[in-house]
């Protein structure tokens, strides 16, 4: 029933794996330390896949499964867009499209003290950074960067927020710049905030620009680079 694969771990890298596939055999890699990212779990000596996706490897020793979902798995140092759901004495409760609510400490702002606690209404959209994401605990968020400066974090005013998959968010944030954003940026002027949890916020001077940008991004998920540029040209031709 099982297909016999060659015993080198490189055989599964960059190919699609299905939950249950054993992708690495630790008994044949005794003197190395490897780091496992998302989607992989360890079963004694065998590393098997938990999600369906593409197995990726980055030198020297990192393995992970890349897949695109509508829900988010919190990771430390990710920048995300959260929506305020409630405010308690010490924390704001933030919805981050993950399995648990995020906690934003009331003092996690630049120059934050007990006297100048910001008042966020329920439903405010915030650009945040994940500080702690431990197993079984609610993730802790912050509105400052690692050195304590505000650095663009905080509430996003005006504009329009829409939801995408996590895979599309990663593509939008990849460098070099994603073809869709480059093509749009040549003709239109807009401001964009991408959350790795699958939320994107767009702001521009006029509503039609916002709508065009939002539609272009939503359509670009399954297109290749060249197709994205063609799609953007098509959309822009229709409005000008």
């Amino acid at each position, binding site marked *: *029933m099982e297909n016999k694969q060659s015993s*080198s771990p490189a055989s*599964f890298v960059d190919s699609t794996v299905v939950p*249950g596939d*054993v992708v*690495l055999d630790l008994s044949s890699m005794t003197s190395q330390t490897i780091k496992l990212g998302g989607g992989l779990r360890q079963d004694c000596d065998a590393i098997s896949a938990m999600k369906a996706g593409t197995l990726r490897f980055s030198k020297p020793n990192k393995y992970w499964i890349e897949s695109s979902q509508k*829900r988010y798995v919190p990771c430390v140092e990710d920048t995300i867009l959260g929506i305020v759901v409630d405010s308690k004495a010490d924390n704001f409760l933030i919805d981050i499209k993950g*399995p648990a609510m995020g906690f934003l400490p009331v003092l996690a702002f630049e120059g934050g003290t007990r006297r100048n606690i910001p008042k966020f209404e329920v439903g405010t959209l915030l650009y945040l950074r994940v500080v702690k994401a431990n197993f079984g605990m609610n993730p802790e968020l912050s509105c400052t960067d690692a050195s304590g400066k505000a650095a663009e974090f905080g509430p996003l005013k005006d504009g329009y927020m829409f939801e995408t998959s996590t895979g599309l968010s990663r593509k939008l944030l990849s460098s070099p710049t994603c073809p869709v954003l480059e093509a749009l940026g040549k003709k239109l002027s807009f401001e964009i905030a991408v959350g790795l949890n699958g939320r994107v916020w767009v702001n521009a001077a006029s509503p039609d620009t916002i709508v065009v940008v939002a539609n272009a991004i939503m359509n670009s998920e*399954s297109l290749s*680079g060249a197709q994205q540029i063609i799609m953007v040209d098509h959309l822009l031709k229709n409005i000008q």
Partner: protein
Amino acid sequence: MEVDREDGRSQNQLRPLACSRNILHRAHGSASWSQGDTKVLAAVYGPKAGTKKNENPEKACIEVIWKPKTGQIGKPEKEYEMILKRTLESVCILTVNPNTTTSIIVQVVNDDGALLPSAINAACMALVDAGIPMKHLAVAICCCVAKSGYVILDPTKLEEQKMKAFAYLVFPNSVHSVLPEGSLRVEGEPIENGIITSVTHVDDYFYCLERGRAASVKLSDFLRRNLQQQSTDSSKAG
């Protein structure tokens, strides 16, 4: 023993399979599965914070809602929900997201025999689409035993009604592995059994099991190809 089935299939032949994922816009994961004319739609929402009162908060909780094609929800639907819940609990890794609930809603679009196995297959694909961590995929088959003793796979509704007994079998999918063949065999490739509904003879049950296992390999391959195809579609972008 040559058997004449109404649609011209052989004893071990399955009906044409079709599966599509990510068809519902709002659900976090969704899949539609059809075997011949039987079609089932499954949607997954979750994981969401909080578990129900009687559930263990150290594990993830799975909640199943079965929606029949017509009529009100009654005892048969509750039974299907319970069977699906137990099967999916054994397939998912419940310790990854403790104190969360994942809801699976199964909608019957058309029932032409082998309804519960189609629902299990659809629910499994929907869970994969939602990215819920799983130990392996669940592959479900329906076997029927006729009065004269022959066994057929994947019956239609008419065939089901004429049978003496039927068994729904659920197996783990066949895995691709980098381990040398010997080490996986030693475990004995554990079989998960779904539910056995009124099998009257022990011999028949083991015969069904063999046939079912052989067919589960084909279904496994179909699932794998389906997942590869859809992932290459979306990876062409950017």
